[in-house]
């Protein structure tokens, strides 16, 4: 792989004094600041509070805002790799490309050979124990499978930061949780992850910190630390008392704002 200047490690992000407004609308963000550590963060908040907008700004897709997005100590660096799993797979998979071509698209842009790409894609599928018809096209797959494709594409490049925008909304509970655990424990996991979610369980399984957003313009309402270590995050925790306690505590905090 082309590794010129590329450092494979998680990166912290800061958002400073962000102000963002769509035309003819209220402010989505006004002097909004948020510091994300190198760990995993889950963003919660009601529909339309600006979670996706925030992800697009932090990932550099949306540049029409005032304020600063700082990666580690400098602003946007081309050397860093960014992964982004978009919310709506029907808009963000290329229908003319097979499942395989979609997954390895980031590698194709960097000029990685087809053979090497194929190996990497196979390896990913094996790690996630997915039995995927790689030659099929997105329109031949279910919406859940398409979401998985989007997520696989976002991690194939081993990004420094991975943005996941409700990536599993079309998956059933079992597959969703399985996928989450596999995502945390995947090989070469050197990403800090920013995760938008609607379910507390996902956040507790996955994140080191839950951030609750709300209001218009949006602000950080509360933050909750999740004390699980990485090696503790296994399917067994789902039925542990600690998991229940943490979830209950989070729900209590959230309830204050409903």
């Amino acid at each position, binding site marked *: 792989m082309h590794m010129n200047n590329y450092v494979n490690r998680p990166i912290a992000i800061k958002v400073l004094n962000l102000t963002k407004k769509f035309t003819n609308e209220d402010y989505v963000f006004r002097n909004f600041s948020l510091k994300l550590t190198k760990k995993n963060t889950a963003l919660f908040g009601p529909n339309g509070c600006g979670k996706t907008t925030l992800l697009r700004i932090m990932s*550099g897709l949306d540049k029409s805002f005032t304020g600063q997005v700082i990666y580690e100590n400098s602003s946007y660096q081309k050397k860093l790799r960014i992964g982004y799993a978009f919310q709506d797979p029907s808009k*963000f998979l*290329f229908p*003319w490309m097979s499942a395989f071509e979609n997954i390895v698209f980031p590698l194709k842009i960097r000029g990685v050979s087809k053979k090497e790409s194929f190996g990497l894609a196979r390896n990913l599928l094996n790690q996630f124990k997915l039995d995927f018809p790689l030659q099929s*096209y997105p329109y031949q797959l279910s919406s859940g499978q398409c979401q998985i494709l989007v997520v696989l594409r976002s991690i194939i490049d081993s990004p420094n930061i991975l943005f996941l925008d409700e990536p599993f909304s079309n998956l059933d509970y079992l597959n969703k949780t399985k996928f989450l655990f596999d995502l945390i424990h995947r090989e070469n996991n050197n990403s800090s992850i920013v995760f938008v979610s609607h379910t507390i369980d996902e956040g507790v399984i996955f994140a080191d910190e839950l951030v609750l957003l709300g209001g218009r313009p949006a602000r950080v309402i509360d933050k909750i630390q999740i004390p699980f270590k990485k090696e503790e995050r296994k399917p067994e925790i789902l039925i542990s008392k600690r998991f229940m306690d943490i979830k209950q505590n989070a729900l209590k905090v959230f309830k204050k704002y409903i």
Partner: protein
Amino acid sequence: MRKYSFVGLTFLISVWSILSYGSKVDRLLLPQPQDVLIYLFNGFFIKGFFITPLAETLKLILASFIFGSIVGIICGMIAGYYEKIYKSFELILDFFRSLPSLLLIPLSILLFGIGQFSSFFVISWSVFVYSFINAAYGVRYSKTSYFDIGKLYNISKLQEFMWIILPSTLPSIFAGVKMGFSIALIVTIGSEMLSGHQGLGGRVVDAYMVYNTKEVFSIIVTVGSLGYLGSKLFDLIESKVVHWRGN
């Protein structure tokens, strides 16, 4: 479902037969189906008097269709990519699109003289308009979400064009090419009729002047089949190249 298409065909031929075998309609005006069939067979396989006109028409239609499509697609994609170019030419294109192309034939004959080139010019132009507009629309309205994916990975302009813009515009390009072919057929026959060119259009004018209705009918069947086979061929190519369309 294919077997049902025979029902319609049988119906048409039955009505034709009933009318032409009865004594009410003059045989000179409405020849019997088998006479037309024999005439066609004669014209293509025995005496061969239809072969040259068909070849002439095919030559003209293919040359202008291919030329008009290629130039139209290239210019259309450029115009679709650069908004300012598109806006500058939008008005005149809309004007010419609304204009029946046959109206341009007299002008073209004045400019280029009687002959194949004036026909070639008008047919190419009408094909150009359709492929241009569709290609330009395709590029302009290619999904912005597709570009986001490339942006994340610092895609180059060339890669973006080859891997995102071009394939996402293909369905629209194909729609334009298909429309262009039907238009090419109409304008080719029309211009041949007007300019006395020795293709099928010229032949049909000659035939009707001397009440050779068998020939008129034969040419109608030939041109109709040409259009039908052409559009089926494009449908087939489209389903292979733009396989994701409609899925």
